[in-house]
């Protein structure tokens, strides 16, 4: 613990490292509440305490902040007197997150009067084996699909290049230098296996990466523009097992495979019905995003350019649906747009707003049930977003 005394005011700032003190098995939010409660109790000096609901900057839509406030009040009960009127110390806080940790910063003020008494900050390490999922609920957007669940993880460590749901409850995540397999359960995405990609990693300012999941979902080819070789991994009982390396990425109807144009995120290769590229993204069923962010669909006559502008994600949640990331210029919000695969040039069937910029999209499903996984960049890092969809009318 360290105490700072700004010259300009009498407040002290106390910074507490919760991870060192708390039980490693407790959930990060509970450990954060433990630590902050202890510090509040120490600063209260017998005064009554009012805990305001923290401002939530985690993107959880406020649910984490509500949980923290509840945990905090529970831990303060019996140690201090809780009050919402009369002379008291009010705790106003902000909950935020960074890759691998949760943060809370709190301001303690004397009420009535508003005199600053103390400033506290605490953080708790996340469980490295678990990416917790919290509801994150933007509006689903008008359309034929209902959003059954919309959840997001905290920021992950490193940049995510591609994602792919596997089976009912697994997700493959391609990082810049590794492939990871997660299992989806009630708590979140639990890491099952992680394998590093072949070295040396090459410098690329904005790297690309692609997962090709074999039809039986028992193996996946992966390639990034930072790695010199494509790798085939077997998904064997929850473990990733490297089986083979190749100079190019296997891709259907692409005799020589796909390679990244050196130093870029652009794929090159001669794909039947789609041409030579370069491509930003490819879909195994015959759609592609070109280097300038246009959607192409394959046909016997060659690629057909669709008047749709897209960002960095392309996926198929169902045979008749194409999902693309929004193609708007830089902004703090993006969207996943769902297009009718039979006529993708028509206006989107539905648009799902997302905070941040969608960098990669993966999907699997049928007409009755779909799951979208998105890697979304925002200020605090890259989150994984899981969206479960179902038709509004069966």
């Amino acid at each position, binding site marked *: 613990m*360290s105490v*700072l005394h700004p010259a300009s005011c009498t407040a002290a*700032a106390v*910074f507490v*490292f919760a991870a060192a003190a708390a039980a490693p098995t407790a959930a990060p939010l509970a450990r954060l509440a433990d630590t902050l409660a202890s510090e509040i109790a120490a600063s209260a000096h017998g005064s009554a305490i009012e805990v305001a609901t923290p401002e939530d*900057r985690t993107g959880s839509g406020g649910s984490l902040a509500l949980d923290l406030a509840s945990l905090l009040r529970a831990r303060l009960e019996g140690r201090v007197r809780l009050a919402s009127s009369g002379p008291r110390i009010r705790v106003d806080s*902000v909950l*935020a*997150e*960074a890759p691998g940790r949760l*943060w809370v*910063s709190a301001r303690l003020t004397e009420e009535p009067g508003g005199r600053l008494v103390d400033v506290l*900050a605490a*953080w708790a390490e996340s469980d490295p084996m678990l990416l917790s999922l919290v509801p994150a609920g933007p509006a689903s957007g008008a359309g034929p699909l209902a959003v059954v669940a919309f959840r997001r993880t905290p920021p992950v460590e490193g940049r995510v290049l591609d994602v792919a749901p596997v089976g009912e409850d697994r997700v493959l995540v391609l990082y810049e230098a590794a492939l990871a397999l997660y299992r989806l359960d009630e708590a979140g995405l639990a890491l099952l296996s992680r394998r590093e990609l072949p070295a*040396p990693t*090459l*410098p*690329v*300012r*904005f790297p690309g990466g692609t997962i090709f999941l074999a039809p039986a979902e028992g193996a996946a080819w992966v390639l990034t523009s930072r790695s010199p070789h494509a790798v085939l991994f077997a998904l064997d009982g929850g473990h990733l097992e490297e089986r083979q390396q190749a100079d190019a990425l296997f891709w259907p109807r692409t005799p020589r495979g796909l390679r990244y*144009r*050196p*130093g*870029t*995120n*652009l794929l090159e290769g001669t794909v039947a019905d789609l041409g030579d590229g370069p491509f930003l993204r490819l879909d195994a069923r015959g759609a592609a995003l070109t*280097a*300038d*962010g*246009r959607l192409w669909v394959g046909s016997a006559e060659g690629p057909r350019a669709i008047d749709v*502008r897209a*960002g*960095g994600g392309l996926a198929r949640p169902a045979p008749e649906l194409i999902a693309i*990331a*929004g*193609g*708007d*210029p*830089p*902004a*703090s919000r*993006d*969207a996943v747009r769902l297009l009718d695969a039979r006529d993708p040039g028509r206006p989107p069937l539905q648009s799902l707003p997302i905070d*941040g*910029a*969608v960098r990669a999209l993966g999907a699997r499903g049928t007409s009755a049930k779909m799951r979208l996984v998105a890697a979304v*960049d*925002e*200020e*605090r890092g890259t989150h994984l977003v899981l969206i479960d969809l179902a038709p509004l009318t069966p």
Partner: protein
Amino acid sequence: MRRRALCAATAALAALGPLLLHAALGPRYGGELRVGVPDMPAALEPGSERGIGAGLVAMLAHETLVGVDEAGFPAPALAQGWSTAAGGREWTLRLRDAAFHDGRPVSAADAARSIRRFLRSSSFAAARLAEGVDGGAAFRAGRGEELAGLAVPDAKRIVLRFAQAPGLPLAPLAATAAAVTGPAGAGAGPFVPAAPVPGRRLALTAFAGHVGGRPYLDRVEVVTLPDGSSVPSEIASGRIDVAPGEPGISRLAATLLLILDPSRPPFDRPAARAAVAAAIDGGDLVRHLIPGGDAAPALLVPALLPPLGLGETPIAGRVTGTATLAVSLDVPPVASQRVVAHLTTLGLRVAVVPSSPATVLAAPTHARLLMWTPEVPEAGLALAELAALTHPSPATREELTAALDETDPARRRARLHRAEAALRSEWVLVPLASVPVSYRTRPGVHGAAVDLGGRLVLEDAWVEP
């Protein structure tokens, strides 16, 4: 622990900041930019000239061993990292696997040769490095070829030895004049220069082997603009995409600085200089004539050294006589006219001598008015560079030396505040305002930035399709 706590606080506060804008569409590889500049360098050698065009071309074509991060600390560039020994007097830099534009690998021998070239250049940062490196002063003065303080133990490491442990000894290597070049002069920057039309145009293409990765743009073309007033029409017509001016990208990176010559009357009297400092209302300039400026009377822009309000308050007075004032052409005319008006109100008869930004510092006038940006955007080096423009008193020199030699970051910052106040209180350097450096961009250009040295950075620029 205290530093750890500060880092923790910084991270916590950063988490509370406004959301950054993210590109849904990009960044995108491909495309090109045409950049208009008022002046073009005559040569491509690193650090051979100063000015907007020379600074831009140097940033595009060359790469240094280290950079300076936003907090003012040296950051890896061609050097992937460094270690110290001998109580901070010996610094070993490890090079990344990198290549020059001609395909040759960047070696420690290239880095050492480039440092030797740098030490004999006109760069202020080079002079500062030479003062500290063993044998550096004699080498810089040309008194021999021996440079004991520079060694190359193997192909990937160079060692710098200093007479005493300095604070931030690697910062001078972030100067563009310190860029590493190959035996034939090839650079290692993000773009490969090609097809120059001397004084008018230079085309550069993306360098796939750049240490930071290939830049997004395929091509950048730098062209000379006939004059600043043509920028809006040139951008509207699509002939250029980026040029100095507003609106566009902007950063508080320059100081509007009045330099008084203390060796010539009437400014040989400290009271007269203080009267000038008291007479010019920086707040008035910012409010009415320098949109986006900061009126705090500080020699460095707030991002380099936040103003603390230290130092003496100048005493108003009257100054009579005649003074010549060299005015750099990049000072907004309305601001220079207001400064002249203030000086006239004091009782001075002022004759204005228009000067180019490249020559204003050497103008033989009683006073000089210019937009000043540091060669290396690090507070200590920047203050030392300013001090070199004057002849500070022994007490001020002592304050500055103590700050530059301080190795503890927090104590260094505190000492720099005192040194800045001491330098300012001699009233030779009169800061009038911190001023934004701005570049107008056409719609659809993203990722271009202005660094703390006021230079346009296009390494991460990209364009919408």
